């Protein structure tokens, strides 16, 4: 591995530790059965980060031709900056929905695989949902993002564009 890749991997690792601790603190503060609240707070954190991150990542990128162009950017350059890898698959109904598929979502990689942890894993997708809503809203695409674990550590993010 080159020096820069090693550094990138290590930074990712640092982020994962930070994220894990944030989730843990939020869960402790909220108490039991307050999963929705925790997820909302994670989304809101992610949203602010997404706004900043897209501003920097798109700075030298040519103007987006259209909405699809912007979403493709999120799947490639933006996701790479955030998680050191691309989104693996993008589908769209060419109306108002995009489905982003990540085969090996970083924040799920260290979680246990059994089905009983799927619910817990859901919380680990909230921050990334916020990243996407923040980034997309900052380029003028207001949307709602929901995420789902398909088969650990793969997941999908469904982006519904709001009018």
């Amino acid at each position, binding site marked *: 591995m080159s020096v820069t890749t090693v550094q990138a991997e290590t930074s990712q690792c640092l982020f994962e530790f930070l994220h894990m601790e944030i989730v843990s603190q939020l869960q402790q503060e909220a108490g039991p059965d307050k999963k929705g609240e925790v997820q909302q707070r994670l989304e809101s954190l992610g949203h*602010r980060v997404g706004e*900043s991150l897209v501003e920097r990542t798109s*700075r030298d990128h*040519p*103007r*987006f031709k259209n909405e699809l162009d*912007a979403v493709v950017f999120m799947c490639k350059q933006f996701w790479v900056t955030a998680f050191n890898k691309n989104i693996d698959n993008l589908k769209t109904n060419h109306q108002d929905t995009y489905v982003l598929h990540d085969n090996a979502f970083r924040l799920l990689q260290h979680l246990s695989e059994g089905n009983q942890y799927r619910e817990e894993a859901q919380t680990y997708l909230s921050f990334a949902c916020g990243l996407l809503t923040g980034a997309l809203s900052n*380029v003028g695409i207001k949307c709602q993002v929901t995420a789902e674990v398909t088969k650990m550590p793969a997941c999908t993010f469904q982006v519904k564009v709001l009018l």
Partner: protein
Amino acid sequence: MAAVCVAVISKQNFPLYLRSVNPQNEADLQFQYLVHASIDVVEEKVSTLGTPKAGQDPREHYLGLLYPSEQYKVYGYATNTRVKFILVVENTTSQSRDTEMKMLFKNLHVAYADMLCNPFYTPGQKITSRTFNNAVSSIFQMSKGFTSKE
């Protein structure tokens, strides 16, 4: 071709930042007027990008000269995140200064993107960052350097 006013306009089209090189009451009002008037021109330019009507590469952020007035020329730049930058410069030459303007806008864009990364800045608020102010001061300085080349 010294820059005399720098403005940053939010995606909702209100000014987040407006600064003249020499803050004096009269000139200030005039720049405010110029900047406000130019927002409409920016909107129009952005909406016609990619059509035959547009005069430039739709992939570029730089929008070129928005309109000249007697004393000043107003240039525009629109980012992917719908933020607009306006630069007002002295109308001292009829020569095109696109290269220099692009450089100034690029610096402004870098400064803005960095400023947004300050976690204590809430997007949509007026910009009060010291670092950003310093970057704008450098832009005023840099543009003076262009004038001396004429």
